[in-house]
């Protein structure tokens, strides 16, 4: 049986209880997407976009959807959650855990009452310009559903993207974050996705929508964690919409299990003078694919895409980014850094499209990679399509090893091989990590990097 048959059957089984069922636009959205997914099938390495990443391991397995919230998450993870204070939404195996989620600012459950700002309402209400709720709940609320109708599925393309189409058909929950125009949110919004990895292989389809109103400012961090290893698939789609003059600081931190699969599509659309800064921190999985696509759809809009991927063992990380300069005077800056050890594989593919009308585009892309072993591998490729003539577009890629002269310098100060390597790798990574403005994500990145040195990730 092909994967198409398997998932066609699955869809017919679950369609009746998926959120938004009965809303004509949702039904249509799902139906179209599923048909597209079944038509496309999972990508093969014959597709240029998947040349270096073979999803055969995903094809070989059958992933069951998750029906109900897991009873509990293990204790160590619970304390780890405290590192990501509210406002936050926590999803366990793809479904919102209301007890762990809250709208209060700078607090952790059980959410002590906010001192100065009054009591935050329950999820679904608005608090200081922030409206945040689970997607499933939002679709059940007629007012919210009306807003969602004009956004959900309007940005992330599915016509030639099997995973995004699959998610659009199958999504069961996700985060709905809306920031009112002019709101400056002082606390970052955390969206935490935990995979328990228990039982037979399961798939989750987180579906997130972030709407930043005109001139608003917000930081949103998506964190993907594995509770206890295991084989599972996370197939996430996030749509980000930045209104005119909005400033979005977006983070995606991926710490999946070494047996897990992670495919995420992020699509951001920026209006006039809007600004997006993205940090993608990825520690890999059996297969991790991050697609980040930004449409600079307003004059003077700008984006900065920073990425750090750190992988060892048999892990794979594939970063595909696309920056679409659609309007004049837009600026993009991109820096992705990879650290690869063991038999790890890394991919960076950075597309920059400059449309005919996008004069005065200013785009700069850099990919820098550090190979720590002879068996590690990186494929890095810029992909430029420039149709305007008055533009500045530059790109560069480097692949290097630990510098021997630097090693000697550190050793001559008493540091052994291991310590010296760690210092140099930390130094390499710090260019990205130090740019992280949300402290939880910066700290977690440093902690994970430390664990990576200890080889804990290898064992998990």
């Amino acid at each position, binding site marked *: 049986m092909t994967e198409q048959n398997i998932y066609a059957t699955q869809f017919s089984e679950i369609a009746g209880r998926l959120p938004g069922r009965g809303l004509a636009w949702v039904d249509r959205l799902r139906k179209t997407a599923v048909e597209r997914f079944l038509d496309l099938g999972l990508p093969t390495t014959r597709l240029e976009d998947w040349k270096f990443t073979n999803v055969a391991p995903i094809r070989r397995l059958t992933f069951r959807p998750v029906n109900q919230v897991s009873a509990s998450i293990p204790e160590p993870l619970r304390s780890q959650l405290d590192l990501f204070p509210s406002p936050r939404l926590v999803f366990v195996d793809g479904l919102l855990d209301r007890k762990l989620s809250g709208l209060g600012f700078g607090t952790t459950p059980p959410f002590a009452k906010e001192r100065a700002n009054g009591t935050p309402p329950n999820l679904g209400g608005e608090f200081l310009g922030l409206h945040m709720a689970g997607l499933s709940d939002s679709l059940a609320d007629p007012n919210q559903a009306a807003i969602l109708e004009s956004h959900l599925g309007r940005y992330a393309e599915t016509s030639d993207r099997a995973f995004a189409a699959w998610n659009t058909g199958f999504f069961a929950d996700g985060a709905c974050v809306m920031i009112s125009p002019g709101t400056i949110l002082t606390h970052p919004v955390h969206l935490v996705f935990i995979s328990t990895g228990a039982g037979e292989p399961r798939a989750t389809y987180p579906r997130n929508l972030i709407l930043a109103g005109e001139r608003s400012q917000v930081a949103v961090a998506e964190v993907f964690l594995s509770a206890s290893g295991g084989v599972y698939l996370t197939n996430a789609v996030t749509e980000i919409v930045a209104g005119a003059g909005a400033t979005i600081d977006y983070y995606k931190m991926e710490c999946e299990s070494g047996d897990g699969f992670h495919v995420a599509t992020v699509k951001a659309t920026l209006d006039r003078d809007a600004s997006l800064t993205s940090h993608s921190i990825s520690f890999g999985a059996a297969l991790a694919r991050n697609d980040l696509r930004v449409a600079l759809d307003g004059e003077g809009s700008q984006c900065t895409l920073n990425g750090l991927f750190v992988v060892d063992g048999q892990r794979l990380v594939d970063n595909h980014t696309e920056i679409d300069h659609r309007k004049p005077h837009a600026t993009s800056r991109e820096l992705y850094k990879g650290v690869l050890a063991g038999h790890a594989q890394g991919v960076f593919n950075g597309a920059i499209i400059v449309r005919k009308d996008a004069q005065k585009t200013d785009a700069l892309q850099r990919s820098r990679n550090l190979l720590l072993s002879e068996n590690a591998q990186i494929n890095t490729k810029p992909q430029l399509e420039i149709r305007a003539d008055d533009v500045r577009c530059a790109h560069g890629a480097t692949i290097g090893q630990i*510098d*021997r*002269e*630097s090693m*000697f*310098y*550190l*050793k*001559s*100060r*008493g*540091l*052994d*091989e291991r*310590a*010296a390597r760690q*210092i*140099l790798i*930390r*130094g*390499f*990574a*710090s*260019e990205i990590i*130090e740019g992280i403005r949300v402290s939880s994500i910066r700290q977690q990145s440093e902690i994970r990097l430390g664990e990576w040195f200890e080889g804990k990730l290898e064992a998990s």
Partner: protein
Amino acid sequence: MLRIRNLCASIDGKQILRGLNLDVNAGEVHAIMGPNGSGKSTFAQVLAGRDIYGVTADDLTFEGRNLLEMPAELRARNGLFLAFQYPVEIPGVSNLYFLRSAVNAVRAHRGLPELDAVDFLSVARAHAQKLDLDDAMLKRSVNQGFSGGEKKRNEILQMMMLEPRLAILDESDSGLDIDALKIVADGINAMRHPERAIILVTHYQRLLNYIAPDRVHVLIGGSIVRSGTKELALELEQRGYSWLEQPAGVEA
């Protein structure tokens, strides 16, 4: 403290050091002088344990320990320090973090507890002040964006923090203006101690106006061709090196 007999070093099949002999005792300051290409920097690097050279010696002992069997980090932990001619830039690693890691690695080897961050910072600041390095320099990435003079002073700072038994200073005077030279020389003089030896590797006599050496050696063609007192340095300043150079064919 340091005993060298018939030290030879080569790289890529090219012989650089050819049977070098030297004895350095605790409390002494030795100057190694010589023209460009004579093997001065190779000598300094070989002593610190640079592993790109093929090294042989009848005897190469530091405080009774065979250096040939000791990797660079162990030499450092046992009290050998090299101030680099060209200090390496390490982006993304703060000078302070680097210094603290180094100091604690050396302390751990000596069975001393780690310095806590506060104690460390106050010591580092005090030394930095003596070298006219401001606080910002401690927080910046190691040597990155430092001027030539700042890099040299940063090497001296590391020496002060690590308190070596034997310090080898490779052209710590080169590229310095007169004010910076005085600061560096003061830093080195402050390190003079009956228990510590210092080897100054230098091309010019200039530094020796500020630091009086006990012995001066001339290195030419990979071996020491003449040794003397500080007056030898003055003579070299006036006469150059050519009168000491050996007949043609010896120079590599």
